[in-house]
């Protein structure tokens, strides 16, 4: 057997923590999803020729994190005000300490807000639907999609317009619907007692 040749991957996303550390990489003819617990790394490849669809669904990730971070921000704000207005313990040092914590939590809140709306991204092939945990914000997902869309389209012979997709879906659904209605009418004719719907 010939020795394994090195494949050079380009990073698409940084690590995102959801159960495990997950990231997405771009290979010459596939996407590589890595999941790591820190000591063992598992890989899943999605070849461009096999990818049927990528579904992006908005969720409340940003709002939830904003709500979680808002609580310590309010606590720190209360601490700063309490120190400055001499309610509890008149202390300038206390106000500075509270302000440092306030700044840290505000920074996290700002970063979370600027990262954009949360989303869940799923990739579909003929045999599986897999989640891509590292694509969890809409702007980042859009950037990655803009990068991989032409590569997938090139591997499959071109992009499809919205109209083409809906017409192809309709074409495939019509024979199935016709078969179902034919079966129903045949069953009804065999059973005259059945109500005619």
């Amino acid at each position: 057997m010939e020795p394994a040749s090195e494949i050079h991957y380009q990073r698409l996303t940084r690590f995102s923590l959801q159960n495990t550390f997950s990231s997405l990489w771009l290979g010459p003819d596939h996407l590589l999803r890595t999941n790591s617990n820190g000591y063992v790394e598992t890989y899943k490849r999605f070849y461009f020729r096999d990818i049927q669809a990528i579904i992006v669904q908005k969720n409340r990730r940003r709002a939830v994190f904003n709500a979680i971070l808002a609580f310590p921000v309010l606590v720190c704000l209360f601490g700063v005000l309490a120190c400055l207005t001499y309610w509890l313990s008149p202390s300038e040092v206390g106000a500075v300490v509270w302000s440092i914590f306030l700044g840290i939590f505000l920074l996290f809140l700002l970063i979370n807000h600027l990262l954009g709306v949360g989303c869940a991204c799923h990739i579909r092939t003929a045999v599986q639907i897999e989640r891509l945990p590292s694509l969890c914000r809409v702007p980042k997902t859009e950037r990655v999609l803009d990068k991989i869309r032409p590569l997938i389209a090139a591997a499959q012979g071109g992009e499809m317009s919205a109209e083409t997709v809906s017409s192809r879906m309709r074409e495939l659904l019509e024979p199935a619907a016709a078969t179902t209605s034919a079966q129903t009418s045949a069953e009804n004719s065999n059973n005259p007692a059945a109500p005619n719907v």
Partner: protein
Amino acid sequence: MNNALIQCPACQAWLMGGPFNQREFGPCPACGVPLRGEVFPALFRKFSASQSGEAIIVEGESSCFYHPQKKAVLPCDSCGRFLCALCDCQLQGKHFCPTCLEAGRTKGKIKSLENQRTLYDSIALALAIYPLITVLLYMITVITAPMALFVAIRYWKAPLSIVRRTRIRFIVAILIALLTIAGWIIHFSI
């Protein structure tokens, strides 16, 4: 799996039409969650039936190594055994027999089939650093520092992560482990 339709990831409802290959999000008709889909031609591709291999008709014809009744169509690129159409596993333009394919996967010789790697550099670094930073456990560095050194040296040539990675973790682990061991030697000699 229905080949022509896509399901909403949230409610599993079938999406007959909807926001496909458009820039904006549209609501799922069943649950109302905003979503969009990128659909590619592979969704509408029809699958061809797999080949079962042709039976030998003329006596003396080359036969498949695994199915002596079937006609050989090509040799395995790895071991050279004759294969019928059923046993021919094509991968990246090469033809393998099922045995070589399985051996390539388990031994990591076919990189595109490798799906797991142990990160020995991270293990060595964790052994060197974690007991030190958890102050209460610093005593166990008597054991973990030599362990970190052993792991770093023993697995120096082991494959690292499949994506970009350097041996910097091994180097840091070795340095910290050596410093810790030196510290313990000085401590016991005083």
